[in-house]
């Protein structure tokens, strides 16, 4: 099969050539640095490019949104990060932002406006769901058709921002065998990593949250646990290893599954 090298457009380069992309793709720290989640960012740009979307990334000019700082109680540091990012957005006249990380999505969409940063912030699942609805993103249904898939709701998409339908519609367009966990949608159990928990050990208890959630996912007997958040991904991957199930059950991000189904 023929392949081609994908060049990721960077905002500063495009501006130097006087080009104005329609969207900023906000990669997020996990998309840039987390070994596992980097693959999700890569899958997403493949899909973007397949769809012919006009976008660019900030590259070295991107910096943490300040979400973990804010949720860890350091409001000062959050404002410093946000101030800096808003200045960069201003400089490039950013109006539309595409995000993959739900934490970045939530803070850019809901909290930056309090600081005067108003953008149309779109989560990648909403974005891709629209293309599917419009018939512009037709996947090869046969690839995942018979694979049982369950979905773990990230708190900051689900309860945080009421995005429940899109991930399910997308997954149902990929597989004929979608299955819910016992606690799903607004009842979904957290993976244990939100609110800056990702960066610390859990408090003393009798179980890790990610194990509780992984066990619930395993009870569905799904072969794939689909997720939509870098922290959830880290937790579920750990959970599968802990349960020694990493060979039988895989954790993929929804956009990785789309890329697979598009054979990209």
């Amino acid at each position, binding site marked *: *099969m023929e*392949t081609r*090298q*994908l060049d*990721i457009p960077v905002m500063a380069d495009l501006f130097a050539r006087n080009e104005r992309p329609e969207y900023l793709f906000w990669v997020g*720290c996990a998309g*840039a*640095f987390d070994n596992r989640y980097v693959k999700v960012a*890569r899958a997403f740009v*493949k899909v973007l490019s*397949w769809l012919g979307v006009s976008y660019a990334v900030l*590259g*070295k000019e*991107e*910096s*943490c949104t*300040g979400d*973990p*700082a*804010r*949720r*860890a*109680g*350091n*409001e*000062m*540091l959050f*404002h*410093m*990060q946000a*101030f*800096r990012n808003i200045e960069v957005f201003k400089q490039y006249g950013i109006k539309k932002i595409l995000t993959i990380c739900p934490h970045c999505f*939530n803070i850019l969409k809901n*909290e930056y406006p309090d*600081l005067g940063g108003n953008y149309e912030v779109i989560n990648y699942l909403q974005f891709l769901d629209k293309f599917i609805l419009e018939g512009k993103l037709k996947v090869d249904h046969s690839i995942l058709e018979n694979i049982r898939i369950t979905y773990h709701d990230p*708190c900051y998409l689900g*309860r*945080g*921002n*009421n995005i429940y339908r899109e991930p399910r519609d997308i997954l149902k367009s990929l597989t004929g065998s979608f299955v819910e966990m016992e606690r799903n949608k607004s*009842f979904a*159990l*957290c993976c*244990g990593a*939100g*609110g800056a*928990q990702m*960066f*610390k*050990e*859990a*408090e*003393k*208890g*009798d179980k890790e*949250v990610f194990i*509780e*959630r992984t066990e619930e996912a395993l009870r569905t007997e799904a072969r794939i646990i689909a997720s939509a958040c870098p922290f959830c991904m880290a937790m579920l991957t750990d959970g599968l290893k802990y349960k020694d199930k990493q060979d039988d059950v895989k954790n993929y991000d929804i956009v990785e599954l789309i890329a697979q189904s*598009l054979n*990209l």
Partner: protein
Amino acid sequence: MAKQIIFTITLLVSLGFFLYTTKRIISFFWLTKPAFPVKDFWKRFNVMLNVAFGQTKILRFPVIGLFHATVFWGFCVILFGSAEMIIDGLSGSEKVLKGLGIVYNIIVGSGDIFGFLVAISIIIFLSRRLFFHIKRFEGIEMKPISHQDANIALLLILLLMISLNGMNSVYYQYQTLNNLPLFGVYPISQFIAALFSGLSNEVLMILYQVFWWTHILMIFLFANILPYSKHFHVFMSIPNVFLSRLEPLGKLPNMDHVMKEVQLMLDPNAASLTPVTTVPVERFGIKDIEDVSWKNYLDSLACTECGRCTSVCPANITGKRLSPRKIVMDVRARMKEKGPGLVRSGKEFNDNKSLIRDYIQEEELWACTTCNACAKECPININHPVIIVDMRRYLVMEEGSAPAALKAMLSYIENNGAPWQYSPDDRLLWAKDIEMNVN
């Protein structure tokens, strides 16, 4: 006439005590900080219709939720009957609203049915609490007094309903026995009336007065006990829902003064634009009760300790010390403890205790994942993560206290703009060598 006088005096005494309680609580509200401006009246009205009157959130636990909804809707209907009793008591009239005809029949009839249904629901609630081990009703914050509190309120409601149906049944029996016109319809009590057949007119009259007085005195007593018990929620939950935070659950409130400070620091132009007249902030975040917002305090008064929040909390489920219900109950208890002193002696009052550490441990605060399962579940829209983060704000910004790993994360963000130790120069490494199939 004697009945009127006694009734008026009882009513005045109850109202007087109620007024005293209200004033006391309002004086506590004056100690609190601003939360958000109350705008969007229609949106709030809608939330109130849905969540309070529609009971949509309590019905997320459908079976037991329906019993609660029955009690709530029953209370709403029965309130009309209570209003009539108060007018009757004051003016010496008998069923003063009977002139309303069909409307009266509907009010009295549904009140009669609901009285019975509420009684059944309360018996179910009581048996759940007394004979079954329901995990949701347990927890470190649930002391014997909390259980007592619940049982007393339930017993009072049960008595209210028994006296209501008793009154209706005796009335029905008396009127039919003497071929007198019957005002209102009594779909349930007409059957209960059989219990009173064979009794003489005099006995029926006395029984009627006993039920009538029991019912009205219970209402007065109930209304005055509520503010001192967790069942204050009967009064406070509807206002609390009306005054809900309307933002998406994922959104945290902004600290405007911190924002301004950062802007002044980083933007040289801002200094000339914003006059530096902002009032100095006494404290970042929440350490003690005088730092909480009116909304935090209102939440704590409206909480009925149902434990739905704690039962869905991932930290609590996995055995951590955090219990969202405890946080809310601690706010209420701390205000009860420190509030009177603050009202008496002003801000300077100090009892050498604080909400953080004497009530709430850091371990609880750091266990929260801000997943918002608690806030989503709360039947009256209490928001726990907002106050938890506000307490973290105090710990981090005032004391520099946080788990070591979080301090490291914060310094990575400060130094290299990511929560991990990676150079900003490496931010494009992920985008290297992406091969894509052409198809």
